């Protein structure tokens, strides 16, 4: 039986039926960052706390990765099975723009300002056959 393991603890709530991205917010200046970090990049304070950044956002900018990246890229793909993927920054209700893989992977499907939905997806398999899960954003289809 294979288990679903997050690629890194603390990036998103998991397991969850409605996963949320996790970041940190500064107790002094209220700026948020992703991923969570113990210190604040804005004011230098060390008083930060973990917060949910949300599961929906707005696409701020995008591109498409058309070639398979070299190491440190580590997926289960080969040059033959590699599929282009979208990359973008998504503006989150938690007050930060998060860089993420995007499931839409053609220029026709992507537009600055479009609503995006968080999804937690299997990214690769480890030696035991477990699914290593990462986060990405998909286009919102229903409103």
């Amino acid at each position, binding site marked *: 039986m294979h288990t679903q393991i997050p690629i*890194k603890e603390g990036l998103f709530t998991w397991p969850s039926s409605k996963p949320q991205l996790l970041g940190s917010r500064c107790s002094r200046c209220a700026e948020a960052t992703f991923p969570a970090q113990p210190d604040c990049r804005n004011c230098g304070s060390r008083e930060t706390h973990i917060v949910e950044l949300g599961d929906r956002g707005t696409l701020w*900018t995008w*591109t*498409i990765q058309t070639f398979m990246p070299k190491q*440190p890229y580590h997926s289960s793909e080969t040059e033959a099975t590699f599929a282009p993927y979208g990359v973008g920054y998504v503006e989150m209700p938690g007050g930060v723009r*998060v860089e993420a893989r995007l499931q839409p992977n053609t220029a026709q499907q992507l537009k600055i300002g479009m609503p995006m939905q968080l999804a937690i997806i299997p990214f690769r398999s480890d030696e035991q056959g477990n699914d290593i899960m990462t986060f990405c954003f998909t286009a919102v289809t229903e409103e």
Partner: protein
Amino acid sequence: MDVAIIGIGLHRFGRSPDMSGMQQGASAVRAALADAGLSWKDMQFAYGGSQDAGNADSLVNELGLTGLQFTNIWNGCATGGSSLHAAYTAIKSGEYDLGVVVGFDKHPRGAFNPQPKDWGLDDWYGETGLMLTTQFFALKTQRYMHDHGITEDALIRVSEKAFTNGSLTPTAWRQQKLSYDEIAQSAMISDPLRKYMFCSPAEGGAALIICNAEKARQYSSKPLYLKAAAIRTRHYGSFEVFAPSQAMNVADAPTVTASKAAFELAGIGPKDVDVIQLQDTDCGTEIIHMAENGFCEHGEQEQLLRDGATGINGHLPINTDGGCLANGEPVGASGLRQVYEICVQLRGEGGARQVGNNPKVGYTHVYGAPGLSGVTIISK
């Protein structure tokens, strides 16, 4: 204490299969010394760096073990600019009169593959394919075009100019002109940037002999003066490479702050500059950097490029030797290649690519990961 540049040397960018990166650095130093009419034993200090071709201070094995102060500099794509800045302050402080700045590199073929740990990031960021400089430049360009009404036409024109200028530059790596259509139809690499809109890692070396301006005439009949050198890093909120997240409020890029600091030091403004070198890792960044360095307003680039203003015969000549696009980017050497080209232009030695109107003031700008810029202003 004012600072003069009295010797310039370049080891041709591109591929030198029979030479190590270090040897290309030594070749550039020898050329700069010859240009200044000086020898290695005259050098009191050296600053230098490379990313992939070894520690610069090992150059003494090739050039001579003279006991000089030699400091290695590593600052990403701004390594050359940072080495020059260090030399500038060494002279300004009065500690030294005469020294050399050198940068060289030799990268494996293909895109760079930076490692997350070297940049204070976790492995997942690289593993999931988010840590590519090409992506960042595409993301920044995409947003910039959206905000400022820049179209693909402007991107194509930057590339067209770069390869035209490269074809006029005997030391350039890429000397083949490309037509507008060839560029427009080249493969889309990272939307909106196509194949001929990106520079490639390469090889090469560049060196400068720097001296106390009061003594410059002893050595050179054609000294140039380094009026300003400034390095700045990113502020909170500036949109930079290798950033898993960005703040909502966009702050000025380090290029803006470095540029302002340099103009202030030199006591002049963008309108006083006659010939310009801007970091053109790709066509989008050249366009963005035109405005970030104060040479136009955001959005004006579209018309300026259509009018040919940034060409060799335009009123805002940018990257007269073809820039990174036509020369490739040996990281350690790239920023010094820019200074080399500005010196060539100010001396009037540009040959087929010489800008007209007897240029008196030149400007160089580098930008590197994870968000730093270096600017110099050079005058006759």
